[in-house]
């Protein structure tokens, strides 16, 4: 091999190395490992009991966008606040009370029977579907919907329930779409409600 050829070879090796280095430097960094898993498989069929004491199958929600909030009627602060806010947002959305269903599912079936959730749901001045069930039914729904709830004994023999306080939004196909959290602004919440009712 002539000197010229050797030089050409060496320079092309340099060139190749430079390209390789550039490629390594410029390719997108591997995605950071997520610290939270997003449950895209949230939801599932259920049969609970409505405020009228009759079975309420989830099939009744087919074709209807809906917002589900898990709480309990002995919750004096966050639950009424959240449901009132949801009712207000539905009014603000401007598509009528039928735009999407608001469901209140009790995570306290021992104290919340059909009468309790029915009376509670009826206080909001706008359609709210109150649901409860047997402890086993509620456990199954909690698992499907990724809901955490835990009894906390209080002095005096009563108990409180720690629980997720987000509202879960589902589109008309029954697919989990988004959550509305308590510290989220109205604009963001309305945008999400607009999407499921589009």
């Amino acid at each position, binding site marked *: 091999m002539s000197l010229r050829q050797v030089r050409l070879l060496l320079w092309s090796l340099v060139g190749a190395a430079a390209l390789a280095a550039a490629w390594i430097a410029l390719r997108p960094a591997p995605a950071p490992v997520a610290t939270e898993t997003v449950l895209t498989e949230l939801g599932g069929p259920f049969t609970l009991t409505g405020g009228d004491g009759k079975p309420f199958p989830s099939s009744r929600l087919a074709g209807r966008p809906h917002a589900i909030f898990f709480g309990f*009627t*002995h*919750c*004096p*602060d*966050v639950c*009424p*606040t959240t*449901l*009132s806010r949801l*009712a*207000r947002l*539905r*009014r603000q959305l401007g598509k009528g009370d039928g735009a999407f269903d608001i469901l209140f599912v009790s995570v306290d079936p021992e*104290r919340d029977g059909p009468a*309790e959730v029915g*009376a*509670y749901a*009826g*206080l*909001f*001045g*706008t359609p709210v579907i109150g649901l409860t069930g047997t402890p086993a039914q509620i456990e199954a729904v909690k698992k499907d919907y990724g809901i*955490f709830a835990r009894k*906390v004994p*209080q*002095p*005096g023999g*009563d108990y*409180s329930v*720690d*629980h*997720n*306080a*987000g509202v879960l939004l589902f589109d008309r196909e029954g697919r989990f779409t988004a959550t509305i*959290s*308590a*510290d989220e602004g109205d604009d963001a919440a309305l945008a999400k409600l607009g999407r499921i009712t589009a």
Partner: protein
Amino acid sequence: MRSFLFLAALALAGCGDAAPDLSIHDAWARATPGTAAAVYLTVDNRGGGGDELVGVSLAGARDAAVHRTSMDGGVMRMRRVDRLAIEARSKVELAPGGLHVMATGLSRPLVAGQSVEARLRFARSGERAVLVRIEALGPR
């Protein structure tokens, strides 16, 4: 001599253990079917001394106590607060999502439009009565 003692006493009264000067206002609660109710209000302390809210009662409720709602990674918790400090020259607000009086064992539901009496017991200021107006749930 007397005027000196008088002035000295006046001077001493101005510092040290000053007294709280509380006013309670804007007390309201949401209508409830009768299981539990949350009462919200504001305590304004215009005095130079602090105080503590150590007891609450609501007419028609078997038990009432201050609780604090807190969010911990999306999970809502509610814990009892036995003594709520009201610092000198400050305001403490009990409002949705935070501090509130939780009343349980209601003998009757709270109906929007009505008023119910609450009694607040303070460590230094004694007992104060306040009228709680009941507001409707739902969109306003």
